[in-house]
């Protein structure tokens, strides 16, 4: 496939609304005014808990569901008027949806067969597509004779054989075991780079999203919570929801006590924390976030000034390279820290001082953390 100049507005979703009525009579807003622009060569992930609207959006792009209001443009042309079989997008389904009555060759070649591609070219392209997903020579077998991972590859080959402008992937890795999933994540990313087309990937697995995506769209209750690169979403979450959904985090609500120069002091339920000053003023309500891995365990006498939090260790869990420490601060709030494991022999009930870098705190104005990050 030729690498054309990527267009930044390849897929454009404008003010998309879609609601469902539940059997109980309630209303669920699956899409509540979504605006999104996706580039033509981008690996973009829709991430969110179940019911956040991510699968609905994918189904609408594929043509299996309609939009209440709004517009979706693909390469400048509206998608919404064409039926699913005329849209230049293909889908990899969650449960693969391979045709059980057809062999692998006929499954992969289905798109070419219904388009009336000549036998010779069809067979060649089937072989190419299977080779691309690392599964040559299985044309004569039936889907039921393949393992889950192999079926996954067949589904992928079947979806790319029509040379779609965009590939939609609906939690395609969720049925695979952990090791295979990790391997497929990298293969998918490589395949996307090789094809040079846009992959729209839907998942509820934040790790998967962070591993593969160029950009992540975090969805919650039909709204975009944050749109950013994996780094941005992880280190600069836009809201408390994003923080809680992606990775583990310590979240504290507090009031600014004093701010001046580079740093600000915040009172978190009696404990003072020093963080970077994002034009805060004394009396402001803020939410403070710190990832567990940004704490360091230091002997009490080596802590530099006030950049430490005293806490009592409640439980220490060995998770391989690291120890996860579940602690409780003096004000009673829980605190989680991840430190490099050693034979130090920490015991529950032990008093610790956890040191942090003041610039590592992520500050969200407002106690509830709904505001925008600065």
């Amino acid at each position: 496939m030729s690498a054309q100049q990527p267009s930044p507005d390849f897929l454009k979703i404008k003010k998309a609304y879609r609601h469902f009525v539940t059997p109980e009579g309630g209303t669920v807003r699956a899409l509540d005014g979504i605006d999104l622009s996706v580039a033509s060569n981008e690996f973009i992930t829709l991430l969110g808990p179940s019911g956040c609207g991510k699968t609905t959006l994918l189904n609408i792009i594929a043509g299996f569901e309609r939009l209440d209001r709004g517009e979706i443009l693909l390469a400048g042309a509206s998608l919404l008027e064409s039926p699913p079989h005329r849209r230049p997008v293909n889908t990899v389904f969650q449960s693969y949806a391979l045709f059980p009555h057809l062999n692998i060759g006929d499954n992969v070649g289905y798109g070419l067969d219904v388009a009336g591609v000549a036998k010779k070219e069809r067979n060649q392209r089937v072989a190419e597509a299977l080779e691309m997903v690392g599964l040559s020579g299985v044309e004569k077998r039936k889907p039921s004779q393949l393992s889950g991972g192999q079926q996954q590859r067949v589904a992928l080959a079947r979806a790319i054989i029509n040379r779609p402008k965009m590939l939609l992937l609906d939690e395609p890795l969720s049925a695979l075991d952990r090791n295979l999933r990790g391997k497929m994540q990298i293969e998918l990313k490589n395949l996307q780079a090789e094809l040079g087309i846009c992959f729209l990937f839907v998942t509820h697995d934040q790790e998967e999203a962070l591993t593969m995506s160029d950009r992540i769209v975090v969805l919650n209750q039909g709204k975009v919570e944050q749109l950013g690169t994996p780094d941005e979403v992880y280190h600069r979450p836009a809201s408390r929801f994003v923080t809680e959904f992606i990775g583990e985090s310590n979240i504290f609500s507090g009031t600014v006590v004093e701010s001046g120069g580079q740093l600000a002091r915040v009172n978190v339920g009696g404990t003072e924390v020093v963080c970077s000053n994002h034009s805060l003023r004394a009396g402001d309500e803020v939410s403070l976030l710190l990832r567990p891995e940004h704490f360091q365990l230091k002997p009490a006498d080596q802590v530099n000034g006030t950049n430490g939090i005293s806490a009592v260790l409640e439980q220490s869990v060995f998770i391989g390279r690291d120890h996860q420490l579940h602690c409780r601060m003096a004000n009673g709030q829980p605190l989680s820290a991840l430190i490099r494991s050693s034979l130090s022999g920490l015991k529950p009930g032990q008093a610790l001082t956890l040191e942090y870098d003041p610039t590592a705190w992520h500050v969200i104005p407002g106690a509830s953390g709904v505001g925008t990050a600065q």
Partner: protein
Amino acid sequence: MRSFTSQQKQLLLLLSPATLFLGIFFLGPLLIMAVYSFLEPGLYGGVEWNFYHWNYGRVLGWADGFYEEFDIVYLQILLRSAGLALVTVLVTLAFCYPVAFWISRMQSRWKSFCIFLIALPFFSSMIIRLYAWILILRDSGFANQILMSLGIISEPLDLMYSGTAVIIGMVYIFIPFMFLPVYSSVENLDPKLIKASQDLGATPFTTFRRVIFPMTLPGVVSGCILVFIPALGNFVVPAMLGGAKVVMIGNLVEQQFLAARNWPFGATLSMVMIVFMLLVVSVYLIRAMKNPQHS
């Protein structure tokens, strides 16, 4: 002597009631029928124990040497019965296939209700239900009254005692036999497969031809067999709704045993019918054995 493991012994024990029952009440009568079909008819019913091949000759049209000229009337009746059974199969299929899709898309409580409705006729006697059809179809029946009061016809249609009445009755009787297997294969069809087909560029018609129909074919074939075989041998519906005008092979067998008291010839007609059915079904069985995942 080979010894059985305890598991095999358990299995034998569990299967023995079914084996005994089928052995006594299915294979036994079948064997008696096969033997009788080669015996000479007794003068007042029953059989004479002499080998007699004219029974089969008579079915195929040859005169039996005593009573008849060469006449293929029995083969004609068999073929006409097969034709009526085939029409019944096609009409029930045309009715059940779309309805099965419609019901499978409903919410689950409506689904159960509709399946209950389909099975509801089984709750009353078939004879009573066929009498109801007589009330509907006869000259002064509901069908004619409604059509006349609407001004569609001016004189009553001659519906009763015709091939049409027999087909209406058979379709009515056999709809559940077609519906249930067809519905179960439609219900098991994964909607994602239909989506996948559309997604890959297939039009709705191509999706039907390449995915929906092949995937539901096993249910359709089961339904066709379940309707065709009893419809072919049915004698109650033609007797009640067809009168003397529509004689099917089932009526013929009944007449031979009960009216003509020619047991060997009745047995022969039954054997010919069984062989005919086996030929029809074996076409499907051979296909199913070649493609195991279809059955």
